[in-house]
């Protein structure tokens, strides 16, 4: 008789299991999409519109076609199938259809023997434009009925009134995901009319559906393969070069590679929707919300992309994690000639969080309450109706606890630092210590988990147990957040087997895992791994008559009854699942119903040093308490919290795509500034574990929360230091200096 060790499997849930991609990334050996290479490949390049709105008068590709080394020059006439694409509604031409509707819209594509020739060929194409006046004001577009979606929320009594009224107008600018890895793709013809497409993506199955439509091909003819992602943040949820690179490969019969340069990347992916929001909060004398009335417009830019879902989020989270019985929202997302907007971390919840948290601060100030006290008095919790849709909050929502835990984190040293690099202005040496004023600000944020509004949201996973261990087959995309590690940890803990390998599948090998977005993969693909692992374990235990599975094999009441070799003697054992979260509903015409699968809440406290005269800021420390459900990998969570805070700090004080007449003025890293290590504050974090009502071990997705409320916390801190109203993000030096 052999007695098992009965030790918990190593690197299971709750541990800081190392990332399989960690060393490769740190040592420069990880293959990103932009590293894709195959012998004999051609290079692609793209001709783009120099206007935000213009009619294509003449397009003569002949000078490019006749160039030595040019293998193909394609235009909209060459699109074999559906001439348009789009995730929700296919409204964007694959290549310009005669009218360019945004700056940088692709017009023609070239494949050539090398990159230089491809670029030269693009420049050789003769193109004549008739500029048209661009529509750049989202309010005007809305007034003209040019919207992708309008949302109306009517909940409660329109005549309800509070004794305290706070009115404010807020604006958020365009933030770019600014992933360091640019858009990249390699298309390889398969020799029998089909094509293999290796492309940067967050969701290869939704890409696949759009690609085959525009190529006019059968699903089996096109395979999308995941590649190494150098940052996503929503920028890879929509098609960029996918169809182009496949068209060029199919036309030439040779592999074709396209990698965007930095400026093309800024032009070539969707951005965070800029927003204008008009808020009216009414509260009683104790600071309890009585009524919230909101009118807002988001600018969706030239094509639909995910605008309709972003608007839903902005509308449903317009009050934040607070109770209120009377809520009236009129919201729209406009069609303009500005850069197309779409998914970015926080997805509509970011813009309104800046507005509602600014409102809550002003309410606290009017009533003489601490900013956290007014939030405590209104905190939304399990069993409460969401202020907007009226949906009863199911599962956990520790709003009060995130506030309490946030307050328990020690404040930084009160002394202004001596090191000039840690003062506002940094190495620019602008600011003496005695010109610095410190401020502290707070914010909370609310986000939905996974897809909403009756979307059939699922993830497929196939587990295969072999003598070597467990294989996880999935098309879910790791974008750097740590999904691979988390799923391996889940499988280890459920199966008791340490040897677990993640094997990325292409679109022909397995069904969709859904998008790596919406804070969903830990719960969705993690949930699929959990469910499949439980099924696999139970099947094996039943077959071999055991009560426990470990690295050694099957045990029955402490006795090893079958080794892993014996278990897999007749071949690998498989378990496939398609995992779904609890169903959600379409809201009614007044936004009422149960559109969400669950919620996650976070709180941030920002401490900033400000030079009020020059309007410069150094963020000293940001602390956060985050609702995590269950911490499957605490280190990975802290990584998400810190990274999300960096992005939130960026949006608060520097990150803005500046667009004039529809043209992006700063599409480079020289002028689109993201925080460096010197701009990054110290971070203190607390993880609140109250299990979610679905998903593996009660874990919640936490990827978006850190970005949502860190921005308003920083702005609140700058307000506290300066007394300026600061109703727009990012806050610019002239806003603080008042010039």
């Amino acid at each position, binding site marked *: 008789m052999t007695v098992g060790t009965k030790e918990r499997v190593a690197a299971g849930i709750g541990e800081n299991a190392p990332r399989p991609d960690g060393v490769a990334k740190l040592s420069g050996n990880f293959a990103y999409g932009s590293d894709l290479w195959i012998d004999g490949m051609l290079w692609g390049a793209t001709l783009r519109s120099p206007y935000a709105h213009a009619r294509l008068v003449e397009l003569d590709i002949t000078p490019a076609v006749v160039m030595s080394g040019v293998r193909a020059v394609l235009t909209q006439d060459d699109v074999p199938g559906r001439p348009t694409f789009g995730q929700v509604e296919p409204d964007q031409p694959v290549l310009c259809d005669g009218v360019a509707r945004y700056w940088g819209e692709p017009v023609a594509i070239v494949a050539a023997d090398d990159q230089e020739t491809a670029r030269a060929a693009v420049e050789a194409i003769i193109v004549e434009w008739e500029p048209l006046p661009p529509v750049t004001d989202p309010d005007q577009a809305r007034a003209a009925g040019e919207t992708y979606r309008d949302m109306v929320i009517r909940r409660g009594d329109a005549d309800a009134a509070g004794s305290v009224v706070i009115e404010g107008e807020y604006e958020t600018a365009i933030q770019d995901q600014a992933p360091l890895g640019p858009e990249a793709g390699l298309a390889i013809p398969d020799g029998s009319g089909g094509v293999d497409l290796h492309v940067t993506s967050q969701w290869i199955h939704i890409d696949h559906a759009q690609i085959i439509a525009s190529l006019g091909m059968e699903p089996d003819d096109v395979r999308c393969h995941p590649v190494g992602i150098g940052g996503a943040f929503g920028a890879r949820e929509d098609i960029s070069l996918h169809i182009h690179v496949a068209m060029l490969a199919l036309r030439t019969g040779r592999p074709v590679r396209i990698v965007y340069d930095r400026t093309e990347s800024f032009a070539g992916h969707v951005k965070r929707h800029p927003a204008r929001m008009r808020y009216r909060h009414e509260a009683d004398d104790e600071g309890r919300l009585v009524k919230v009335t909101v009118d807002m417009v988001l600018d969706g830019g030239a094509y639909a992309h995910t605008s309709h879902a972003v608007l839903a989020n902005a509308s449903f989270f317009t009050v934040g994690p607070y109770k209120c019985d009377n809520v009236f929202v009129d919201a729209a997302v406009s069609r303009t000639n500005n850069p197309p907007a779409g998914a970015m971390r926080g997805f509509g919840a970011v813009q309104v969080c800046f507005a509602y948290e600014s409102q809550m601060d002003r309410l606290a100030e009017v009533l003489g309450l601490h900013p956290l006290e007014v939030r405590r008095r209104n905190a939304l919790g399990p069993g409460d109706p969401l202020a907007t849709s009226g949906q009863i909050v199911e599962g956990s929502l520790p709003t009060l606890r995130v506030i309490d835990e946030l307050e328990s984190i020690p404040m930084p040293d009160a002394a202004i630092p001596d090191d000039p*690099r840690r003062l506002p202005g940094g*190495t*620019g040496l602008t600011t003496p210590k005695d*010109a610095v004023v410190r401020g502290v600000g707070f914010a909370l944020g609310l986000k939905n988990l996974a897809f909403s509004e009756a979307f059939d949201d699922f993830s497929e996973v196939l587990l295969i147990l072999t003598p070597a261990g467990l294989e996880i087959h999935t098309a879910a995309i790791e974008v750097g957040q740590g999904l691979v590690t988390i799923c391996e940890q889940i499988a280890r803990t459920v199966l008791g087997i340490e040897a677990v390998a993640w094997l990325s599948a292409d679109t022909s090998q397995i069904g969709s895992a859904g998008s790596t977005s919406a804070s969903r993969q830990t719960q969705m693909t993690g949930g699929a791994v959990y469910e499949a692992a439980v099924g696999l374990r139970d099947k094996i235990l039943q077959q071999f008559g055991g009560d426990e599975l470990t690295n050694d094999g099957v045990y029955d009441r402490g006795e090893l009854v079958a080794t892993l070799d014996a278990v897999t003697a007749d071949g690998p054992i498989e378990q496939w699942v398609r995992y779904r979260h609890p169903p959600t509903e379409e809201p009614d015409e007044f936004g009422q119903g149960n559109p969400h699968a669950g919620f996650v809440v976070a709180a941030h406290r920002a401490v900033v040093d400000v030079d009020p005269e*020059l309007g410069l800021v150094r963020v000293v420390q940001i602390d956060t308490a985050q609702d995590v459900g269950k911490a499957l990998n605490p280190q990975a969570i802290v990584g998400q919290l810190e990274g999300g805070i960096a992005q939130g700090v960026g949006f608060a004080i520097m990150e803005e795509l500046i667009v*004039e007449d529809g043209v992006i003025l*700063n599409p*480079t890293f*020289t002028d689109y500034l993201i925080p*460096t290590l010197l701009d990054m504050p110290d971070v203190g974090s607390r993880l609140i574990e109250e299990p979610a009502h679905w998903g593996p071990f009660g874990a919640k997705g936490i990827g978006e929360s850190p970005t949502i409320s860190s921005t308003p916390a920083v702005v609140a801190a700058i307000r506290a230091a300066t007394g300026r109203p600061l109703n727009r993000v990012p806050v610019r030096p002239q806003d603080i200096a008042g010039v």
Partner: protein
Amino acid sequence: MDFLAAGDLSTALDARAEHPEAELLAGGTDLMVEVNLSYHRPAGVIAVRSCEELLEWEGRRIGAAVTWARLEDGPHRALAQLARTIGSPQIRAAGTLGGNVATASPAGDGLPWIAAIDAEIEVASQRRGTRIIAWDEFFVGVKETTLAPDEIITAILLPEHMPVSQEFAKVGVRNVMVIAMVNCVVARGEDGFRVALGSVAPVPIRAYRAEEMINAETSISDAALTEFARIVSDEVRPISDHRSTEAYRRHASGVLARRLVERCLAA
């Protein structure tokens, strides 16, 4: 495109004389960005970064190819301060003071220092030999200089009397690795304060009226400093663009100049 890596100055000058259409490459931190991001295609490139003569730095003569990394550790305080603010360590290891002068960007961080200390630009050509140009005759417009097509900048020449104190500051929205919204050098010599600013005009400028005003004060009061800052703000000629506004640049110019005078006084 022809490429020549010149090992010494005379080779570089010969090549420059023969190929005035070619562009000079030192650190490449401007030129290569143009090539890589803007698809700029130089007709030819003459690399001068290995020319010994340009790497020398002795006393009042700073070779044109001296890098920011060396200047950062050098004896001139404001020059070291500004060198630290340029790009990342990789950029500072490659980029040069001469390249900054040659590019003549309105935001060039080295230029206000040259203006504040009244440095001269030494240039050379095969046919005409060496020529020395006052800084305010060298910079004539946005990225425009009086360097002739066959000439190479060989050194920055410092004056005989260097200031007793010199201070630099630069405003940007990021605390490091940022293009200046305004940059400023104040130098204090035996003849008083000199105030130079960048990013607030097509070329680096001196705030002569403000200098005159502050240098006429026998003891510098708060009121005098306030008036001084006001004159600096009035004297600069900034524009509004995607990096900042005219109003903010005027405001920040005055604030920086005043604070740097205070730093010079405290030094």
